[in-house]
């Protein structure tokens, strides 16, 4: 088992990080930015096999990238497309994988609960889809399996303004059957999300650590007070553990399929919680400025919470762990 980044992964991280410095999380989906992301950096088809035009990278590489897009709160359908690529990869849907490698924005949903059913090759119902309005390829989870189908998308108001969602309605649209969703796809999605959460955690902590070095109260920097310092030390401990878990879970995704389900549930159970805690403390320790709309603290806070419930109420990951541990 290897929990360290390779030299190549460090280079990948540096390239992605450098690209993302230009991103403003409030700007929403910028197709031109995604063209560069998919083109020059080749991130869109990162985990798509080379034979379909992708980079054929593993989940450890993917985790490195998602940590950075999470830290930057990258808006637009990047994560949604990753989720779709994971599902298509597990289903072996060549044509759609090629489309993703070519830069087609995609999504899969609903990620929790139901709402859409198939009958006679057509879909009926309604559900929430991450970036449902931006996606050109929409994968729909139904009790009858996964289908590709465009419905009518209406954007909804989201707590996390950096990640749009849409309610997509299906009124008997014909759908392309792609097969039953393998359980492994859900686990891989959980690991990918945890990698994003690790990035959000790291960025939220870094922001308050820097602020604590310069903000002054009662004649000294607030980071010199143990009331602040000890909280930040605890968050650093959480970050170290979260990073270790994400590296491990990504490693099982690539190398140890039997351990993957447990590692994926562990990653959601630990990292999701730690990420929200860090974002919350970061916001609070910023004081009044952290409560303003203009400051980014609330973007991390809201992304952290939205991520924590993205795949369902967080208790489902713990319940899954209890089952896997045969408690």
């Amino acid at each position, binding site marked *: 088992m290897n929990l360290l980044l390779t030299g190549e992964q460090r280079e990948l991280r540096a390239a992605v990080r450098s690209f993302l410095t230009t991103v403003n999380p409030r700007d929403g989906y910028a197709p031109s930015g995604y063209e560069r992301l998919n083109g020059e950096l080749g991130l869109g088809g990162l985990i798509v096999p080379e034979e379909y035009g992708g980079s054929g990278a593993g989940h450890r590489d993917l985790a490195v990238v998602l940590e950075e897009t999470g830290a930057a709160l990258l808006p637009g359908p990047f994560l949604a497309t990753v989720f779709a690529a994971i599902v298509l990869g597990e289903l072996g849907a060549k044509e759609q994988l090629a489309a993703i490698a070519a830069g087609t924005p995609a999504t899969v949903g609903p990620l929790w609960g139901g709402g859409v059913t198939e009958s006679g090759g057509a879909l009926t119902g309604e559900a929430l889809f991450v970036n449902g309005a931006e996606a050109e390829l929409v994968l729909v989870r139904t009790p009858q399996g996964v289908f590709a189908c465009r419905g009518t998308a209406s954007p909804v108001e989201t707590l*996390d303004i950096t990640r749009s969602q849409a309610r997509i309605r299906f009124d008997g649209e014909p759908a392309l059957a792609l097969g039953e969703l393998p359980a492994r796809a859900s686990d891989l999605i959980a690991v990918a999300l945890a990698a994003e959460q690790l990035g959000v955690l790291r960025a939220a902590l870094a922001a308050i650590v820097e602020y604590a070095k310069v903000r002054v109260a009662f004649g000294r920097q607030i980071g010199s*007070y143990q*009331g602040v310092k000890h909280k930040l030390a605890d968050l650093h401990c959480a970050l170290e553990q979260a990073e270790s878990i994400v590296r491990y879970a990504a490693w099982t995704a690539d190398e140890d399929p039997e351990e993957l389900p447990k590692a994926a549930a562990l990653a959601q159970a630990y990292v999701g919680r730690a990420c929200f805690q860090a974002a919350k403390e970061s916001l*609070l320790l910023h004081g009044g400025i*952290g409560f*303003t*709309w203009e400051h980014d603290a609330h973007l991390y806070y809201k992304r952290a919470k939205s991520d924590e*419930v993205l795949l369902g109420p967080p208790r489902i990951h713990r319940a899954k762990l209890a089952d896997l541990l045969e408690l």
Partner: protein
Amino acid sequence: MDLAEYRSAARAWLAENLPASDPKTFMAALHDAGYSGITWPAEWGGQGLTQAEERAFAAVARDFSLPTYVFSIGLGMCGPTLLDRGTPAQKERYVRRLLRGEEIWCQLFSEPGAGSDVAGLQAKAERVEGGWLVNGQKVWTSVAQHADLGLLLTRTNVDVPKHKGLTMFVVDMHAPGVTVRPLRDMTGRSNFNEIFFDDVHIPDENRIGDVDDGWSVAVTTLLHERLSISSGVGMSGQRDDPSSFEALSASVDTGDPVVRDQLVELYVRSRALALFNQRLAQETKAGIFPGARGSAAKLLLAELTSFGADLGVSLAGPEAVADGHPLGAALALAPALSLGGGTNEIMRNIIGDRVLNLPPEPRVDKNVPFKDLKVNS
């Protein structure tokens, strides 16, 4: 008139006069009826009655919805400060109109660079012909967009330690050079304002207390602020809160024993705080002043609010963060309670220093002239 009669008269009056067409008209009528400034001296427009009548009226008023929000800063903080520290002429000029709602007040202490450390503020007032000239910025000011007058704390001397160079004024919010700008907060709404002072002239007769003695006036105001917050905490509003135990146990599926256990945790914490607040209220009624112990109630309320909103969203799942769901909105508002009226860290300092009498931190800002002190730029 005994208290029972007082209460029923108050109830009858409120029933007759509510809902009101306009806050200012209502306030004037409330004052005419004798329910504004119940414990304030009759000399300045109050009723000169006791805490007993005030509590009785407050208890009755809880069943109604009074349109008095814009007057709350004046009634809770500015008025009591004027009564404590104003000259007779100032009381004459301001207090009755405040009680009648003829003039709306706001409070101007906090600055972007001086939050927890209010005394580190930088907005400066310089002596000029006939008064003072004010330049600087204030923030987190409620009701400023409606206010006619403001209680303004300024720096008048940078050659002395920070607490010793402040002066308090009443400022005309309509004066030239005063700009009020709504401050959008993380809920997406504007609950507060920023105020900019650009060469604003204030006559010296508007000064409250001595020159450079403004901190002692501010302490009075802040004491009244804390009292008005802590007397209210945890006593009401539970019904409307989507993350309260009552609301959550009605809205989430309790089929899972783990969910039930988490709701029990919320119940336990909510009851613990509610009972503590009831005990504090009973003590106050019995003449035992809660003092700094009120900070414990404020801290606990902030933490409970944060815990409840977090739990609520976690239990409800993805739907709670879309479509303007009330639980998502509660989560966005929750930090307000941890930041307004003193952060959680400040509350813990107060409890440690003034309730447990623990030794203070070494102070690096106590004896340093303000101009030499490390401050936020």
